[in-house]
């Protein structure tokens, strides 16, 4: 849920001087940022490390924050995107965080696979095999329910470019998943 814009603006201004105001922003956005980071890293410990880094960076940079017309969360997501990228860069290739993703077992019935946590993870992990920009745009849209304009602001791209990334990403995901076919029952 988004804070009323006017209230949020006041809160951010206060947070530049007032620890409790920053605490209130933290209380409001912690869950969103943690979920976003976790959805990219899939490991609790790594998600905690990166989430901590995001809020410390935000705390140290909030004095330079200037409202841009977008919610404060867009700025936090921007920090998170950079922190996630830094985290991946610092990891050795052989210990990829994405190793937590389940590999589908083609021998198991589809229904059983769908009704299983591993299948949910598989569906979501289709995003992880996309190119990085598509992956980020898809995660922010479907994982965080952000507006296209907000995603554009976070990623430094136009709304049109974000649409293109999401469109291509969705096609990529569809190619990586089994496809749903439906028929309607006769009335």
């Amino acid at each position, binding site marked *: 849920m988004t804070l009323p814009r006017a209230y949020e603006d006041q809160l951010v201004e206060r947070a530049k001087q007032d*620890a409790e105001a*920053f*605490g209130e922003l*933290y209380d409001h956005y912690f*869950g969103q940022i*943690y979920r976003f980071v976790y*959805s990219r890293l*899939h490991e*609790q410990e790594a998600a*905690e*490390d990166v989430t*901590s*880094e995001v*809020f410390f960076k935000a*705390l140290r940079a909030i004095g330079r924050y200037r409202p841009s017309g977008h919610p404060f969360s867009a700025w936090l997501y921007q920090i998170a995107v950079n922190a996630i990228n830094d985290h991946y*860069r610092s990891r050795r*290739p052989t210990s*990829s965080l*994405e*190793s937590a*993703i*389940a*590999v589908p077992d*083609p021998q198991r*019935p*589809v*229904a*059983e696979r*769908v*009704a*299983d*946590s591993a*299948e*949910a*993870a598989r*569906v979501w992990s*289709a*995003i992880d095999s996309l190119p990085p920009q598509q992956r980020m745009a*898809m995660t922010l*849209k*479907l*994982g965080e329910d952000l*507006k*296209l304009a907000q995603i554009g602001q976070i990623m430094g791209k136009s709304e049109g470019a974000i*649409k293109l990334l999401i*469109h291509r990403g*969705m096609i990529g*995901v*569809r190619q990586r*998943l*089994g*496809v*749903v*076919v*439906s*028929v*309607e*029952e*006769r*009335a």
Partner: protein
Amino acid sequence: MARERRPRRNSHNGKGSLPPPWLSGWFDPELKELFEKEPELYETAHLLRASRPEAQPDDQYRRRLRASLMAEAEGAVGRQGPLRRWFMPRPRHLAWGGAAAGVALVAATALALFSTHMQDHQTVTAFSDVAALHSVSPEQAVTVAFNQPMDHAAVVAGLRIQPATEITTAWQGNSLVITPVHHFAGNTPYTVSIAQAALRTSIGTVAAAPLVITFGTAATPPPVGQTSSTPELQPAQLGQAASGSGVAFAPDGSVVAEAGIVGTAGATAPPSGTAAPTSTPTAAQSPAATATGSGVPAGPALVSFAGPGAQPVVLGKAAEAVGFSPDGSRLAVAEAAGEGASQVIVAAADGSNASVVATSGSPVVGVAWPGAGRLVYATSDAIHTIDLPGTSATVTLPSSAGPVTALSPDGRHAYLAPAAGTGGILLDIADGSTRTLTGSVSQVAFSGDGATVAWVDQSGGQPRLLTSPVDRDAPAPVSTLDPGSQLTLAAVSHDGGEVAYSVSGPSQSEQLVVAQLPSGAALALGPATHVAAFAPQGGSIAYVAAGASGSVVELAPIPGYVRPPAAMVPAPAIDALNAFVAAQVSGNAGRLHDLAGSGFDPVALTPKGLSRAYTIDASSSSPGKVSADVDLVVDPTSHHQVTRVAAETLTLTRSATGDGYLVTALDVAALHDQPAGPHVVRVAGGPSASHYVVQVTFDSDLAAASVPGAITVSDDSGTVLHGTTVYDANTRVATVTLDSMPAGPVTVKVDTSLMDVSRQALAATVTAVTGG
């Protein structure tokens, strides 16, 4: 047969596909607008949204982080920067507790998604894990999962597969599992349909439309081995090599070890001319330092082994990389030049007349020949081209990529490992275009013809082997022995039909597996090795393995390898034909122009949207000229549920330089719906052992009794050639072994008395010319 999709009953705007009821409750107007004309993408968005991980942070962690932030904000903590896990370490059971909560929530999401679905019986919904895919493994069973109990007998009775395929069916809950008796045919589009009247639920209601699932299979020869009875390779030892030496096959079939070891006795010295490379930009050294004055090196050297017991031949100094020119007449070698530097030497195939064509300040990782007069070599941070005798250029590499680790043998592609994480880059050296290989790190191998790339995907919990054509993004997973074990990729065969990899696990010692692609069916097992090469003509593999007294080079026939009739068409013509057809399928305009002569536009003549192609036959009626018939195929889709085919005739002519073949004439018919019934997908003929053999490959399971009488073979004069016809249901191949050896090409006719297992006849007589 195309059927317009009807709006769902629960559609609230009647404009198209809405989310299934089990995904209702979420609506994103931006995505709805974005995918207004592509409801299937909107549906995918719903599926993703429902599957997103619902992570639940550890509350203790949340509180500690808040306290630390407040402390820093209030100046109680110094500003040394955020520290990883800066708060008090917590007991491990708390970490596990948090993780468990996260998993439980993920599971709950999926179960709720499905249980809600199960309660809604107004719509019959079916999932299939193969629908709309174009590279399904022929080994894979097709599963159709319904959202409610169905009338099993009615559904199975209404099931049809085109091309006709013998199947078995089984029910697992509400899922119908369709398993082909003889696996699916490779490189084939399939349509699985269940008639509307047969889509009956267990309570008797009937669906309003038929169910149609379209998919295509990956190109693969039929599997012939089973893991449980996979034979061991029976190698012959060729000689010794230094540990880590690479191996390659020379055009004459001998095995070349990059760092072979020969004794001072029993080895042939470097041929004349190898002692002092000429035309050197730098002071050249002898490629073979000698220890005894006999010309035989004391240490590792580039050594050719003609066969078991044959005297090894020293070709030069130990090499970092080797590559033979397309016509087999020349050899490019990269060898160390001291202090980390390398030099690239071009010599005759026997190592003579060597001359240095380039030097490098860092080790060379690969050399390859894009053409007879052009060489490519790569170091970890640069790729260079040389137009012989010496004009060189440097290829621009993507700035974000990591080191170059591999070159394709045809010199057209390079693999650049990722700078970090997974997902390296496949680079088209000519045009600079790139593609990411999903999950790749360092293990990548190209087929000998350069058309296929294989790699180990290390992005998931367990490594996966994937392959793809180099010129399009179509990764196909390959089943491997002991999934989950460590994989090390060793080699891919010349035509991309086989792969060699080693597998090892905690409870299992490392071993080499030779398997078919892309099915992964194991053909043979061998000793632990990470270095191997397939013979270009197929049928055998060379590798370096640990021996009793050091590393040895071994050569082994591949059990179960079915050798096709010897090609009567020159290999360069076949390579050019395959490359041209692959470029047509991938829509690679630049490549098409490169491979075509003047006077016609191959891009304009090629239908758009191709999915695959069958090269039906190829024959050579005069020296330097080859004719071929190809079927260009567009797979069926949900909008056009019938396969479309365009017949194409090509003429290839040897280029004036003798460097290869070009397509000099092209005739393409219009796309049309493929008629029902069996189809001929390949005709090949040539001598095999002491007989002349013709093989006709079909896409359907055939009524075996109809096969012998339907196929006739005649010679140039029209005289029918008698022989024995055997149909192999496992491979869908009819083999005609002729009683006599024809002098030239043969004409093969398959008439309309041929029937498939569904009693459908061949739609029209097929005539093909093969051999030459």
